[in-house]
Structures are given as C-alpha cells and as structure tokens.
C-alpha cells in the first residue's frame, strides 16, 4: 500500500482503504478500481491523497486497442467539427484539440 496525491493517482489503480469524504460519508470501498469519475469525485470533495494498492498500477494497454481508440477519437473530432473546414481558425482548433485529447490518452 502506498499513499499518493489524488492528482497522481491513475485510472485502473485500486484503492487500498475505504475512501470517505470530509463529512465521513463513504465514497467507495477498499479494492475499488479507480475510474476517471471516481478520481473526479475525490478532487471535487477536496480529498488530497489516496491509499493505493502496491502493484496496482494502471493496466497495460494492448497497443492495437490503443491505436483503435486513437483513430476513433480522431474520427469523432472530425465529426464534431464537421462543416467548419473553411475557417483556418477552426482547422487550427481541431488540430489543437486532437493534440490535447490524444496526448491525454495512455502511452
């Protein structure tokens, strides 16, 4: 078990202890796998640190699956920006958006 800052905790790691908010309400139990939603809840409840199971690092991603997710994300962004190609500003925004969102995906 190790103590990490909530901002450093990663999706896929497991909580080593029950996590309660500042009022003592149980948010989730020990052994729960951390999701983006749970980490967001912790941040919203100003929980600064979490006990994490050792060796519970984020699961290894299948490179092929990861590549598929990246392609799908890129396609989804192209769809969101549909019809905006005539504006150089929108093209620049779309490309920056791809860099930002693809950069957030696991390596």
């Amino acid at each position, binding site marked *: 078990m190790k103590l990490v800052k909530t*901002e450093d905790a990663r999706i896929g790691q497991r909580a080593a202890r029950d996590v309660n908010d500042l009022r003592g309400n149980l948010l989730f139990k020990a052994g729960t796998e951390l999701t983006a939603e749970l980490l*967001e809840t912790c*941040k*919203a*409840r*100003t929980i600064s640190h979490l006990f994490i199971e050792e060796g519970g690092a984020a699961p290894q991603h299948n490179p092929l699956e990861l590549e598929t997710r990246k392609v799908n994300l890129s396609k989804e*962004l192209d769809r*969101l*920006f*549909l019809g*905006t190609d005539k*504006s*150089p*500003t*929108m093209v*620049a*925004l*779309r490309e*920056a*958006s791809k*860099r*930002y*969102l693809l950069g957030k995906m696991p390596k």
Partner: protein
Amino acid sequence: MGETANPHQQVQERVKKLVDRIQGLPTLPVMLNNINQMILNPRTSPKEVAHVISNDPSLTSKVLRVVNSSFYGFPNRITTVTHAIVILGFNTIKSIVLSSTIFDVFRRNVKPGDFDRTQFWKHSIGCGSAAKAIGRRLNYPMLEELFIAGLLHDVGKIVMDQYMPDKFVEVLNVVHTRDCLIAEAETEVLGATHADVGAWLFEKWNLSKGLIETTRCHHNPALAGENQKLAEIIHLADILIRAMRFGNGGDNRIPMISESAWKSLGLQHSDFDDLFFQTHAEIEKAMVFLDFIK
C-alpha cells in the same frame, strides 16, 4: 450561429411569448437581492453583509468551502465570512452567492434520460475556466467576472428544462435527429434560444448589464455593445471547452468561432495548445463548484 442576428425587437417578442408560458419561475432570492442592495450602499461594512449570509448556514458553508478551495489558493484557512469579504471584496462574494443560489434554485430530481445536469454544469464550469484562461492570456482585468459569466452563460437551458420540459425534450429530439447545434433546434421549436431566455431571466433579476448581454450574445458577440469584449471571451471559451470535450451542453457539434471576435481578441492559432493546458489547470481548481450540485 451566423454573424447577423434577427432584429432585436422580434427576438424580444418571441422570448416574451415563450416565457409567458412559464409558470412559477423563481424570483431573485431575497438573500441575493438584499446583498445586492447592501453592496450598492458605500457605507455597508463587510460585517453587515457577512451577517446576512451567516443567517443561511448552508450558504455560509458553501462560501467558506469555495474561498478555502484551490480556486483561490490562499495559504491560510479562512474561517469566517467577514474575513472572506475583507480578503476577496464584495463583488467576489456576491458572485459566489449568485452561483451558489442558481445551483440551488435550479436543483431538481433528474430521471434517467433527462437532460444531463451534471454534464451541463461541467460544461458551464469548463466554460468559466476557459474564460479565465483566455482572460489571463489577454490581461483582462476581471477574471472573476469572466468565470461567473462563463459559469452562467447557458442558464437558459436549465430554465427551459425545468419550466417547459416537454418543449425542451422536443428540442433535444431535434438535436439528436439532425445532429445540429442546440441553439438551432431551439430556434426551430421555440422561436428563441437559451441565450435569449437566460438573458431575460437575468434582466428580470436585475443582474449586471455585463452578465445579461454576455448571456444574450455568447453566440453572436458583435451584438453585445459595450460588453463586446466580455461576450467575445465567453463565445470563444464556450467553443474551446466543447473542443476539449469536457462536460456537455446538450449537443454534439462545435459551432464556428466568429471571425470578427477572433480578430478582435488578437489571439493566434498557436495559442490554442497553451489555452487548453491553462484551461485544464483552471478546471482542476474550479471543481469545488461541481460539489454545489450534489
């Protein structure tokens, strides 16, 4: 949305027809009205305003939670509302009270399949955060004002969802069927948009001209008159946060950035990467506001 708008009077007529159908829309909460009046009086002391806020324990707790959050990042804990007012000033406290009040006024039990309020408020918090990031880049003097304007720019959607749910479901169905922007669907179904309805509510509540015009013109900032710069920033922030896919305001398209707003702001395409990064950092600090809806 296009660069040219419908004639103002026609839109006002349509909004009036629309809101006349709304029954029981809340008035400006007495507490906020009292604070607004007190702040206008130059003789009012922080202690007097703190006394009014302190009569509401839930509000007091929210104000203290926000002022002690990383959103403001003070090194020492602030334990009284009076201390918070002395440090942050009347206007900032008023903004916190306003946002907290709006979260409360438009709270309701949401059934699965309804308009997703959590995603909506995430979009709003994200827009406020993006507005702060843009404002910092432009050395805009009142970042607090930008955050609140971004946080509340889409409040008309909540008004429609809560007070004309059947019509709003129709709007969302059009969005879903045609994959169009929500403002386009609203115009088709209701003859006016969430921007018009939100501005109308803020006018009714006698809120600041800046907040009213920004809300009204966030899809067409050239019409915001003396508040054009503020409206341009919120316009861009709304689009940036959609491009970051943080939260959701009810549709799945990215509107065009107004070319005239882009030129007026004087930003470069190369600024986008840094704006995303800075917005991300601002969102982390602003997540305390999401706690208000729980």
